[in-house]
Every structure is written in C-alpha cells, then in structure tokens.
C-alpha cells in the first residue's frame, strides 16, 4: 500500500461517484474494453436470462472485489491470479448451492450460466486492475459500477434479439399474432427473423451499440 497521507474521504465523494459512473459510458466493460463478450453472445437470446445473469455478475463482482481488496496485502504476488480464480469459483459455487436450496426456480433459470460467470473476463479484469490496489469500499463501488455497465449492454442486446427473433419480451408476445404470415389463410405480413436467435447477431448488435456510443461520445475515438 501507499505511504500517502490518509485524509478522510466521504463515502460518496466525487471520485467515488466516478467509480460508479465511469463504467456506464466512458469505460464500459463491453463496448469500450470489449471484455465479457462471450457471455454477451451466449445468453442474450432472451431477456430474462440476461437480467438474471446481470444480477448474478453484480453479486459475484461486488463481493469478490471486496474480498480481494480486504486480503490484497496478504496475497503473494506470484500466485495472485490463482487466488483470484479460487475466490470467483468459490463464490459462484456458494451462490449456486444457496440458490438450489432457497430459490430453486431462479437456479433453474441460471443453470449453465453459473459456470459462465467464472469465465467472465470482466471479473478477473476488475480484481487484477482495481481490487488489488484499492480499499474495500472503493472496490465495492467499482464492482457495482462495472456490473451495471455490463448489465445495461446485456439487457439492451437481449431486448433487440428477443423482440426481433421471437416477437416476445420476457416471454410475453409483443408482436400481434395476427401480423404473422399464415400460409393456409394467406394473411399476415410479418415473420420473426430467426437469424437473431444465433450468436453472430449478438456481435452485430454489440457492434452497432459501439458505433452509436462512439458517434455520441467523441473522446472515445482514437486518433490515427
């Protein structure tokens, strides 16, 4: 740790607020740092799993950041990545066990995605880049901020994919059934775009979000 003089900083000082806000736009983990893309492709076919995944990542990232930050001075430098992995993996298994016992229906929703949380590069990235060098409260805010930045993109992509791919949102039919082309009756003019159900479309949607974000926020554009 540093030798700088510790001045008492208020819990929500400007600097701390920045930790929450930055990942939302200027430093978004998905669209700017391009981390966590794998889960953004895998679970954005429908809105509901995307929301559950965002909340789970929020819990694991915030709790993990705090734990790593608390023991940051005890971790031997050479095995720090392994220590980080153990912390993420145990947290995820604990969450999974508790969900299975007390919120069985949610745990069924999550099923395979629980494993995906462990492989989410955002989590290891924040442990390594932030929690190892900052105090627990700051690490907590950083975890919350980054997982919100991640969740917002995930939910936006899932919204587009479920609406255009299945005509539904959260499982409820949005596109009126009478619009659909019915070969037998010869009515309707609409069909779901099945391509949106496949992973490549998630990449294209993320790409478009990056494009829109950079068009608005010009300081993100690199100079050539």
């Amino acid at each position, binding site marked *: 740790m540093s030798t700088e003089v510790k001045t008492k900083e208020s819990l929500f000082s400007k600097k701390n607020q920045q930790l929450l806000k930055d990942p939302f736009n200027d430093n978004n983990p998905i669209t700017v740092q391009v981390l966590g893309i794998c889960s953004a492709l895998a679970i954005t076919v429908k809105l509901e799993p995307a929301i559950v995944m965002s909340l789970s990542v929020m819990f694991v990232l915030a709790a993990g950041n705090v734990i790593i930050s608390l023991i940051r001075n005890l*971790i*031997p*430098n050479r*095995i720090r990545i392994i220590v980080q992995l153990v912390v993420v993996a145990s947290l995820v298994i604990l969450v999974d066990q508790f969900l299975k*016992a007390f919120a069985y229906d949610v745990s069924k929703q999550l099923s395979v995605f629980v494993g995906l949380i462990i492989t989410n590069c955002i989590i290891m990235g924040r442990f390594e880049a932030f929690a190892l060098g900052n105090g627990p409260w700051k690490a907590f805010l950083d975890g919350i901020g980054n997982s919100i930045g991640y969740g917002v993109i995930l939910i936006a992509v899932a919204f587009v994919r479920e609406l255009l*791919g299945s005509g539904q949102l959260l499982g409820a039919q949005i596109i009126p059934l009478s619009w659909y082309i019915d070969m037998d009756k010869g009515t309707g003019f609409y069909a779901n775009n*099945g391509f949106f159900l496949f992973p490549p479309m998630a990449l294209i949607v993320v790409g478009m979000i990056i494009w829109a974000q950079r068009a608005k926020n010009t300081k993100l554009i690199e100079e050539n």
Partner: protein
Amino acid sequence: MNVNSNAYTYTFATVMVVLVAVLLAGASLGLKSKQENNVKQEKMQSILASVGVEVDRSEAEAAYGEVIKEVLTIKGGKVVSTDRETGFNVDMAGAIKAENMNREVPLYVANKGGENYYIIPLRGKGLWGPVWGFVSLESDGNTVVGANFGHKSETPGLGAEITTPMFTDQFPGKKISEAGLFQSISVVKQGTSSGDYMVDGISGGTITSNGVNDMLADCLAPYAEYFKNI
C-alpha cells in the same frame, strides 16, 4: 514478513485451499437435504402437470399423494413391484442403460375426476445434456393426455423451447400404438407433421428435437407389452 517468499506462498496456498474446501463442503452438506427436497417436489409437480394438475411446488407433495393412486414398477411387461417409494426412486438415467425387456421402470397410475391415467417417465439425451419428461396416457394405454419436458442445459430460445406450450400442446390426442403395435410419436421437421404419430420439432433446435424423438421411442417401448394386457 515477506509475502513473496516461497515459504509464505506455500503456506498461503495451503491455508486458502483448506479454508475454501471446508467452506464449500460445509455449504454442500448443510444444504443437501433442502436441495433434494426441492428436486423431489419438482418431480412430483412435473408428474402431476402431465395429467393437467397444475400446483405450486410447495403444494406438490400433498397433491401427489391425492392424485397418484399407484406407483408400479414394470419389467418385461410385468409388474415387479407396487411399492410407491421403489417406483418413485427409480433412477431413470441408470434404468435406460438396460435393454428394453430387462429394464425396470416406474409407471404412475393417477386418478383425476374418476378417470384413471397412466404416467410414463422419459429420459434421453439432448444437445448439451440430458432431457427428460413425462407422458400421460388415457386408461386405454394408447391415447396421450399430456406431456411435459425438462432439460439440463439446452440452448435458450432454441432447444430449450421443448418445455414451452408451443411444443407440448401438440401431444394431447396423439397415439403411441396402432392396432396393438407400438409406434411411438416421431418428432419431425417443423411444419411437416401430420396424423396421430407425429409432432413438429423446433426449428433451430434440431438435435434437441431428435433427442426427444429418440427418447420417446426408447422410453415408451418397455410399456407396450404391459399395455397389451390391460
């Protein structure tokens, strides 16, 4: 203390691993009975749902006791046990490894509104992991009343659609045998099903649909012999 010395690194790793192991093992042991109870209740809930009795998971146990009159264990077309627990606890994943005629599988007999129904458990392979389900038949042992399916890890929006009404609503009224000869119900390419022995598969979920197709053929067959004699 030098946190980067070899001795410290080994000590840290050992302590960490032991602590984490104790924590996880404790959580697993402590929560086991509650988790198993959830799984049991969910199984009862699925069995009931296949004959159209929809209950909350918390009420499943009471409703199961009321609706399910008998649990038979069938082997080679004969009843080998009538013990309710024996039938309910048959491990389907293990049972389906045996040959058709040597297989010990449960048959649930339900009574709803004075009518008897047979409920058959299913178990098979999807794309990423196991798929399972229950099919209920009328007292003739042929006409399907309802079906529901579950899966461990099929793709949401594609293979996982086998659990939705869009897929399961096709089953009521289908038949599993023709003039006493076992037929099963085929899951065919979406939009091409016709007649009493076919349902539409899920487009984009072909391997899961094929898995359900194989599961139906494989798991319904052992009961055909028994139904011949009722």
